[in-house]
């Protein structure tokens, strides 16, 4: 590498940063040699995988895409509550990234990001660095275990699962249900909004009750909600609880869990101690750690403010954020992550090829909740860019199902099939 005057000056200016973070930038070698224009995407969930596929497709494969992911396989969080009810297994929800590599030429790097240098435009991993022209992060959520005394990542993995990322903890929670006695209590603790998948915890209560109704009918599900009320599809959930699982589900509002006794399986709120046989504490959430590494989690140190025309961070140029990590009046859902990913991919192509991003992004979200092994209900909305507010605003006419139904239960299954096909195939 020859040093011209300009990069020599930049090197001098970056001296302090290198001193502060030894191992950053120059020390690491490039994992994949960068030839042309490159976008690095961190996180291959619904958002990141979609951005990768659409960047390749819509740029006619002109832009190189490197997708960084810590997990070997894609596991769908949507519909993973049905693993608790028993109508699906985690294997049903687990898919490979092979098509993204073979069909679309996405370069997949499995590994853990250790740092992001937004000055030098490089992502650091244990095995080296990845330089980028633009970076898209789709980090999902991380859990704020420190908000609940006694809870930690290790405790969640060992005995009190959050199961809010589909995978090993989902299977563990199911096993705990299988092992509990008839007449036992399952307590679900819901954090204050915003959190990933607003209706998810209430759907989970239904799925757990569905299993218990068929197997341990004297048992109870206790919902401890930190929020003042059911945050999504309220009327529909209340009706499902009452009609499908009478006397089984108990709901308590303003019941934030502040402490857990791990050995005793006790959840403590301001008002009471709840002893449970199965304890499912879903901690408060923030943008995944990668957002902090990039220095873009500017909203309360938790979420990322973006320009909704491009999803470029309000903090750093050339860093885009999509999915649950974004601070917006948009639901943190899988469909929403894919919708944002497509707006972002289209805009990034325009920005890299000297064009103008679409000035009127209009996106949609459809989210089904399975309230039994066969019935579902939905919430559907279109969101439009409002230039005055510089925000995405829900269009008139959106809303929820008139009532839960088996037709929607079937449609929910096809929703999963179609969206997974769009993201991964």
């Amino acid at each position: 590498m020859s040093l011209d005057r300009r990069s020599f000056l930049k090197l001098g200016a970056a001296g302090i940063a290198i001193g502060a973070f030894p191992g950053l930038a120059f020390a690491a070698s490039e994992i994949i040699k960068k030839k042309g224009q490159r976008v690095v995407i961190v996180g291959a969930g619904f958002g990141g995988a979609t951005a990768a596929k659409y960047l390749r497709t819509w740029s006619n494969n002109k832009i190189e895409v490197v997708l960084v992911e810590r997990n070997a396989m894609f596991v769908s969080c949507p519909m993973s509550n049905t693993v608790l009810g028993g109508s699906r297994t985690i294997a049903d929800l687990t898919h490979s990234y092979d098509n993204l590599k073979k069909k679309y030429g996405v370069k997949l790097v499995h590994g853990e990001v250790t740092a992001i240098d937004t000055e030098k435009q490089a992502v650091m991993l244990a095995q080296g660095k990845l330089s980028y022209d633009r970076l898209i992060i789709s980090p999902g959520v991380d859990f704020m275990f420190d908000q609940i005394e006694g809870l930690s990542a290790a405790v969640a993995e060992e005995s009190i699962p959050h199961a809010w990322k589909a995978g090993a903890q989902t299977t563990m929670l199911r096993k705990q249900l299988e092992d509990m006695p008839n007449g036992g209590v399952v307590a679900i603790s819901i954090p204050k909004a915003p959190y990933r998948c607003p209706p998810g915890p209430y759907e989970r209560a239904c799925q757990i009750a569905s299993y218990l109704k068929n197997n341990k009918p004297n048992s109870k599900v206790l919902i401890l909600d930190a929020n003042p009320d059911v945050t999504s599809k309220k009327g529909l959930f209340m009706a499902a609880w009452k009609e499908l699982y009478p006397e089984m589900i108990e709901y308590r509002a303003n019941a934030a869990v502040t402490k857990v006794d791990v050995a005793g399986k006790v959840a403590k709120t301001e008002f009471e101690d709840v002893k449970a046989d199965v304890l499912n504490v879903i901690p408060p959430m923030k943008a995944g750690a990668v957002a902090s590494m990039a220095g873009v989690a500017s909203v309360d140190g938790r979420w990322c403010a973006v320009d909704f025309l491009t999803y470029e961070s309000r903090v750093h140029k050339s860093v885009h954020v999509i999915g649950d990590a974004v601070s917006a009046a948009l639901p943190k859902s899988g469909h929403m992550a894919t919708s944002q990913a497509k707006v972002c991919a289209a805009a990034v192509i325009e920005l890299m090829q000297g064009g103008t991003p679409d000035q009127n992004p209009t996106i949609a979200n459809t989210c089904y909740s399975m309230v039994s092994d066969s019935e579902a209900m939905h919430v559907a909305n279109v969101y439009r860019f409002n230039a005055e507010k510089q925000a995405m605003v829900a269009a008139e006419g959106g809303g929820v199902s008139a009532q839960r139904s088996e037709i929607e239960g079937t449609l929910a299954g096809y929703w999963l099939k179609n969206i997974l096909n769009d993201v991964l195939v």
Partner: protein
Amino acid sequence: MKIIKQQLSLIACAIGLALTMAGAHAADDKHARNLAAPCAACHGTNGHSVGGTPVLAGLDQALFVSQMKDFKSGARPATVMHQHAKGYTDEEFELLGAYFAAQKR
């Protein structure tokens, strides 16, 4: 000579205008593509549904537009589509309809 110059500048103008229109057309095409993109969650990539919902790829534009208008007005009952239809303008129905009609089945 003067006439030739005038003609040349007219031709240049015409080419310029054509290019501008082509540019605007490309932007419109991309906007239609972007508008259609979120539909994929239920209707498949570019309207190629893999099950449970109608295949929109290759659907006649006029039929698409009339169906969307009927969802919007409530003339055609639906579980979900009336709520999405209300979020779009008639002009957007035309753009979406043209985009899906252009997709090969």
